[in-house]
């Protein structure tokens, strides 16, 4: 019965048996990519071309505006940048900014590390961290600057204080969520090895949470830059050490707009360098190598 019903429904065909050809007779099982395919696959080259196009658009728009006080062209900006590099002012300003930035960033990271380690070690630590982050994370650092100036005066102290505020919560939150997202299996593996406390955190949780930690570091870095440039515009000239923000502000006062653009361009270039070289190297040698992120 069943076979009759089946043969009515199914289409009958002869069976097929073949021998696959040898790979050598087919020819192109593997082939090298062509020049253009390789060029397109090259991330830095793609990005460089993109930047060149953006600079081109800038130049065209600048020429069409034709007013250096409103919108200097790309070449004017580069010229202004070159002359301030030669005079030594721009490098000094960049150095002053980076100096404060690294101190603030470092201190922020250290505090974030302490906070997150407390948060995963104890329940009360977790409550403290979650509450503090919820309270302070939405608060713009610049809003704290007036207070900081009263507490720490016009100088490095205030800047470092607002920098810590801008870095701490972003890094702590990302690190903490990375720890929380570590798979149960990996946690059990770590405890199975008899790892506890700091050994467990440093050998299992931190590497496992590295993708989130690096994201936190990047966000923290961007926040710190923004905060610093903004804060330096409020006061930059304490003890004669203005940073980049002060450079921009001062040149605006003198209506030297190409130099203002040069200052902004310097901020962007440093940002690109840190993102495209420092963080990229870090990622390539860690999480990308281990395929924890594509």
């Amino acid at each position: 019965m069943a076979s009759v019903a089946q043969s009515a429904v199914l289409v009958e065909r002869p069976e097929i048996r073949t021998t696959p050809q040898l790979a050598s007779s087919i020819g192109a099982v593997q082939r090298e990519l062509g020049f253009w395919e390789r060029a397109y696959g090259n991330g830095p080259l793609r990005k460089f071309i993109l930047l060149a196009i953006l600079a081109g658009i800038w130049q065209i728009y600048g020429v069409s505006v034709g007013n250096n006080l409103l919108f200097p062209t790309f070449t004017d900006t580069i010229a202004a940048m070159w002359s301030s590099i030669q005079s030594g002012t721009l490098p000094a300003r960049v150095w002053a900014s980076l100096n404060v930035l690294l101190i603030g960033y470092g201190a922020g990271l250290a505090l974030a590390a302490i906070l997150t380690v407390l948060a995963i070690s104890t329940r009360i630590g977790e409550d403290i961290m979650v509450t503090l982050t919820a309270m302070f994370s939405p608060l713009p650092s610049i809003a704290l600057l007036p207070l900081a100036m009263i507490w720490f005066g016009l100088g490095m102290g205030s800047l470092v204080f607002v920098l810590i505020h801008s870095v701490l919560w972003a890094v702590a939150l990302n690190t903490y969520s990375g720890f929380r997202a570590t798979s149960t299996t990996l946690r059990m593996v770590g405890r199975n090895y008899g790892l506890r406390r700091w050994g467990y955190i440093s050998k299992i949780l931190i590497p496992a949470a590295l993708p989130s930690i690096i994201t936190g570091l990047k966000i923290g870095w961007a926040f710190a830059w923004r905060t610093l440039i903004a804060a330096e515009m409020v006061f930059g000239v304490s003890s004669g050490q203005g940073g980049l923000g002060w450079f921009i502000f001062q040149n605006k006062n003198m209506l030297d707009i190409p130099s203002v653009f040069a200052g902004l361009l310097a901020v962007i270039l440093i940002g690109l360098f840190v993102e495209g070289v420092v963080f990229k190297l870090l990622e390539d040698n860690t999480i990308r190598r281990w395929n924890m992120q594509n």
Partner: protein
Amino acid sequence: MYPSPGPKDTQQTGPHVAPLLNIEDVTLQYVAGSMVITATYQVSAKVYKADRFVLLGPSGCGKSTLLKAIGGFHKPTEGTIRLHDKIVTEPGPDRMMVFQEFDQLLPWQSVTENVMFPLLCSGKIRNRKEARDRALHYLEKVNLSKFVDSHPHMLSGGMKQRVAIARGMAMEPDVLLMDEPFAALDALTRVKMQDELLELWDDTHFTVLFVTHSINEAIKIGNRIMLMSPHPGQVKAELNGLARDEIVGPKAKELERYIHQELFADKIEEGVNHG
């Protein structure tokens, strides 16, 4: 009453031999939401040295929970688990676990480093070179010599499980705890891995506690098979396994039918109760 043990494959465990692992009336409970769920109820078992002890049962019989309790990850609400007469209270490298999940290898370490890591951080071996030699030795045993420098993401599922087994064995633990290690593998690889595990056992006679829900796997692997009933997990039977040359054939079929019946009887009762 069930297929008597083959002479060469089972050891003589007279009453004078002390068990390696002694599970006494262990009740395990865990909290899920607002409920306390009893995973196992008063389970007892004795595991002797060189046993290939299989915990077999349907899902929900608490076999994995029991294994994790032996691993030290769950504290029994009642009863004790003793390893060498010492009560198990926390996880430790004397009970290495092999999990079902492929993500049990540390992705930031190469295959060799993954095997070396527990040796070094448990303090079992302090010398890096010695740890490396031992890791390479065990990786060779699981046929992974070609992949010692690869990172876990480059390996297939079966290879990852082999690394996990090598990692467990390299520690030379008192007992190797395997939690459905082959369940996520395809059928062909699974059979191959079972054969390899038996070969490894022939080689070093390590003690292993093996959780599975596959009757075939239990018969193939175990020299002693504990059947557990679900909701909550209780001991239904503890059977002797078959000799190696009997794991395919009429005796195996008979044992399989018996186990199937034992586990299946539960389902009918359950159906009646809930129906």
